[in-house]
């Protein structure tokens, strides 16, 4: 049993006990699945199933109605895939398309961590869903839970060769940090049953895994599409003479917070040092195991690496890390970010292959009144071209297409109404939202179902001040946990209650400065009323190229949090 290394006498969080007793993440999941009386699983199992890539949820829109109907909540499960670097084959796309139509709610969600989410899978279909994914080599191991989550990798089609190499590193890292337990295969894929009471040894994780989730990403400058500073563990690719030579390491980023608890806060990562590319897995594992040993296991709201580093200091962290690595890392190499959002439309890679990045509002693949995303992408995937890349901003890149196929793809895009990017404003193109209501149990307010309405309101405001089609990053989450990375948005809305949000301002446009709480608990009218004079001020007084976030900081609208070097 792990003790808090902080010397704290506080008891371990209950989840620690659940992990300890779980026989390497098995718990009573098999029994829970077999219980026909409820669509839910046992309470302890709701913690463990996250490690298998799934959350138990319920349709909150009908929760009260069903209670009156003497029915339990409409329980279902969200299943999140492990998809390192966000790259899927057409065959995998077709499988997921069929899976969500048969077992899910008929849509797919592209997440801010380049994964797919299938929502609305009821308990009796969980196994079938996992097995169908397995048939196209998709698994969900460690897609959620107190482990290393899906490893992200920036999308940079212009540098095709380096992108391919980075993607390979992302896959390799994902495999390297994968738990060793066979629980997933055993429970979902009819693997051989564990004999005995003790689960498999976990050389990297130990019996209680990590204190909390752990997020890793690789980014390829100058595009900070993965918001590298928001990751627990980040690798900034350093390219010299067109060759990937190594990575700058970042550590200690993270966005989750809790309303009303000042001890919880978003934090950007620190730049630690440079490592040659061959050492990526080793360094990553060492950062992770340092957090495994020093993270706070008594309070899950204070358990991420960011708090370990914040509490003990960056110097302590470097010292401990370098000690474990057997020596210090070199100083970080220079790099710079110039963009963060996705670049839409066709691009040509250095190898002459073509890539089409499409704007997917809210990351939701659904057949809407005009854009038929499900049908259109099914038709595209059936062509069997190249691959489909999920961006960190919930968009989709149809990648690696031969020039001879471009016209065919354009025809499909037009036929199914997928060319949203051709007319949308920059605000509408960049806006991001988490899922929130009705399925997410944490949501306090709408996000995905509200984002496009709200971004249109912002556009209206901009237009009213003569800033037609100006770029401002807008992100909404239904709760303070930060899935849509709202704390690095120029206008961040963080849900407090139905229809009410905290308004966060002052981030830069590149994800290198956090925003700050400007006004608390506002409804839409109040949000727009608060923004109106600020946008007016920005329109009147901005310096050349000055972003809205930078303007608010320069004018003292908000004071950004101090940053420890």
């Amino acid at each position, binding site marked *: 049993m792990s003790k808090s290394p902080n010397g704290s006498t506080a008891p371990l969080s209950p989840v620690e006990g659940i992990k300890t007793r779980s026989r390497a993440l098995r718990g009573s999941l098999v029994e829970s699945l077999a219980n026909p009386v409820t669509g839910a699983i046992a309470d302890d199992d709701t913690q463990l199933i996250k490690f298998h890539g799934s959350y138990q949820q319920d349709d909150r829109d*009908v929760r009260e109605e069903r209670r009156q109907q*003497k*029915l339990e909540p409409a329980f279902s499960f969200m299943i999140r895939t492990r998809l390192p670097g966000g790259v899927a084959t057409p065959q995998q796309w077709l499988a997921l398309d069929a899976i969500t139509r048969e077992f899910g709610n008929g849509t797919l969600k592209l997440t801010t961590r380049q994964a797919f989410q299938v929502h609305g899978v*009821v308990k009796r279909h969980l196994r079938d869903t996992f097995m169908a994914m397995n048939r196209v080599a998709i698994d969900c191991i460690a897609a959620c839970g107190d482990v290393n989550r899906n490893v992200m990798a920036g999308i940079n089609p212009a540098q095709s060769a380096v992108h391919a190499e980075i993607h390979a590193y992302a896959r390799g890292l994902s495999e390297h940090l994968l738990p060793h337990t066979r629980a997933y295969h055993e429970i979902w894929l009819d693997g051989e049953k564990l004999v005995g009471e003790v689960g498999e040894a976990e050389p990297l994780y130990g019996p209680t895994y990590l204190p909390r989730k752990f997020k890793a990403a690789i980014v390829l400058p100058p595009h900070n599409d993965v918001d590298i500073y928001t990751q627990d563990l980040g690798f900034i690719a350093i390219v010299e003479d067109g060759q990937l030579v190594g990575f700058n390491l970042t550590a200690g980023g993270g966005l989750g917070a809790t309303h009303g608890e000042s001890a919880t806060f978003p934090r950007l990562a620190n730049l630690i040092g440079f490592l040659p590319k061959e050492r990526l897995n080793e360094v990553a594992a060492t950062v992770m195991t340092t957090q495994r040993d020093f993270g706070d296991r008594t309070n899950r709201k204070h358990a991420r690496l960011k708090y370990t580093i914040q509490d003990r200091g960056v110097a302590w962290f470097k010292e401990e890390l370098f000690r474990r690595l057997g020596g210090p890392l070199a100083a970080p190499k220079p790099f710079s970010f110039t963009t963060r959002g996705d670049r839409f439309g066709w691009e040509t890679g250095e190898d002459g292959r073509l890539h089409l990045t499409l704007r997917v509002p809210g990351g939701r693949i659904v057949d809407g009144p005009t854009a038929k995303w499900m049908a259109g992408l099914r038709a595209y995937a059936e062509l069997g071209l190249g691959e489909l890349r999920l961006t960190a901003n919930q968009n989709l890149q149809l990648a690696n297409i031969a020039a001879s196929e471009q016209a065919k793809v354009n025809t499909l895009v037009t036929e199914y109404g997928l060319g949203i990017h051709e007319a949308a404003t920059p605000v509408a193109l960049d806006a991001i939202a988490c899922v929130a209501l009705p399925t997410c149990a944490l949501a306090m307010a709408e996000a995905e179902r509200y984002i496009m309405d709200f971004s249109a309101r912002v556009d209206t405001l901009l237009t009213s001040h003569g800033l037609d089609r100006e770029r401002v990053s807008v992100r909404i989450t239904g709760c303070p946990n930060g899935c849509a990375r709202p704390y690095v948005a120029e206008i961040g809305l963080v849900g407090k209650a139905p229809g009410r949000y905290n308004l966060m301002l002052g981030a830069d446009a590149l994800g290198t400065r956090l925003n700050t709480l400007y006004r608390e608990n506002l409804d839409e009218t109040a949000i727009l009323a608060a923004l109106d004079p600020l946008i007016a001020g920005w329109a009147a007084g901005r310096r050349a190229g000055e972003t809205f976030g930078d303007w608010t900081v320069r004018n003292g609208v908000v004071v950004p949090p101090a940053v420890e070097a």
Partner: protein
Amino acid sequence: MPLDPAARAALDHLAAHLGPAGLWWAAGYLAGLAQAGAVAAGANVGNVAAPAAEAGVLVLTASQTGNARRLGEKLREALAAAGHAVKVVGAADVNAKQLAAARTLFAVASTQGEGEPPDEARGLWELLAGRKAPKFADTAFAVFGLGDSSYPLFCEAGKFLDERFATLGAKRLLDRVDSDVEYADEAEAWVAAAVAAVPAPAVRAVAPVTFSFAPVAVRDADKDHPREVGILAAQRIVARQADRAVVHYELEAGEGFAYEPGDSLGVWPLNPAAVVARVAAHLPGAVLDAPVVRGKQERPLGEWLGEQLEITRLARPFLEAQAERSGAAELAAVLDKSPAGGARLQAFVANANVADVLERFPVQAGREWNAGELLAALRPLAPRLYSIASSRAAVGEEVHLTIASVDHGAASGHLWQRGTAANGNTVRAYLERNTHFRLPADASQDVIMIGPGTGVAPFRAFVQERGETGASGRNWLFFGARHFDTEFLYQLEWQQALKDGRLNRLDLAFSRDQAQKIYVQDRLREQAADLWSWLQGGASLYVCGDATRMAPDVHAALREMAQQQGGLDAAAAEAWLAELAATKRYLRDVY
């Protein structure tokens, strides 16, 4: 007037409960007593005892929904009023000796589905058909059959009894009556004929009615004396995606509704206004407030259609008339009286009402209905019976019902409309005893309950009752529906009951949640070993719900269980089930 107020009240009370024949007889009887000076000062009339049960008149009832039993009671009252020693016995409670000992035997029997007897009479049927059948030496009998001519085997149960009694040596006192759904007039005539046919008793044996003075006990509301009952709640209990509504009702019943788990509630419906309007639209020049004569009564047309006649259920007389007036071959084909035609007719009537038929098979020119003719062809509106889904031990004065709504169904629509109305949310209802469907008297006995769909209603009552009374026996429920997500009736309550230990086992069959359909009988097969063991330990088995498919399928699964687990052959397994039924440990409430 020589009567004090209390005596006058007692007399009024008595008079209210005597039919016309009883009143005439009582008048003569009292006159005779007065003449004989038998009423001495201070004699307590209320303690006049019924004569000892001499080998007299036995009224046998075989009832499913209560009509046969009610008619049996009417006959008893009339016979008693005529001074006879008379006993009414339900088919489930009668034995061969009792039958043979009766000097006069009246039987009232209803027919179910495909010519089957009521559930309570299954044992009696086997008895009468078997070697242990009674031998009648000195018994006269008469049979009144209740039936529905929409079915091919009309009044089969009555015919069976009539034939059996005669074959077994009894002498036919009256010709058998095969009555259709509208049987009130025939029943009245039969009762009068029966009373007249029984040899008059000796005058001294007479004591017509026992009753007591005030406080006058509240009599149960009955079919002919329903009460207005308030609807406290009308809650849909299937999810919004369900394509068939099931509604949980909570009624404020109170006095006259001292029900027990297993009993039913009769509800007098009103027809949906939309169907009334559609029917009226087919009557040339019809005005809903125009007076129309049907039988001996005159009422406004709207009242006939709305409150008096069946227009949401179809019956053969109307269909035959419409077939003839329309000349529609399709409709005529539906009325084919061959056994195969029966199924076709059933399917047809399940999916259409009077308005539908008038619209789909329009009458030929010159053959139009007038209002009086159409009303004459329709049957009187009948009350609907629903198994009570609550225990008074748990819900006090409330009565809970679990009702699947049929589109345009008279009763379910009426209840829903009243239950959700801001004002006037009452319905006319009465208590229908279901004495053959009772929990075991010994609370330590286990019970196994099989109730898919709304058939689960009485088992909610059972589990409530056994929970509240602390019954130590175990409770095992089999429930089924089409979909887990939408139609798991009372899911939260069952989950809680499992947690509390008020329910020990719950097996579920959701037929359409997977490619292969799974029904409760499939779960019974899976659990055969445990079921057998429970039954060997004395458990009682209850089945409630669909009579056409579910009940026979469940029966077959139970027979297989007995064969497989008990090593019995098919006949022995069937006999074992029959014995279980005879000892009231295999009880069915199916419809």
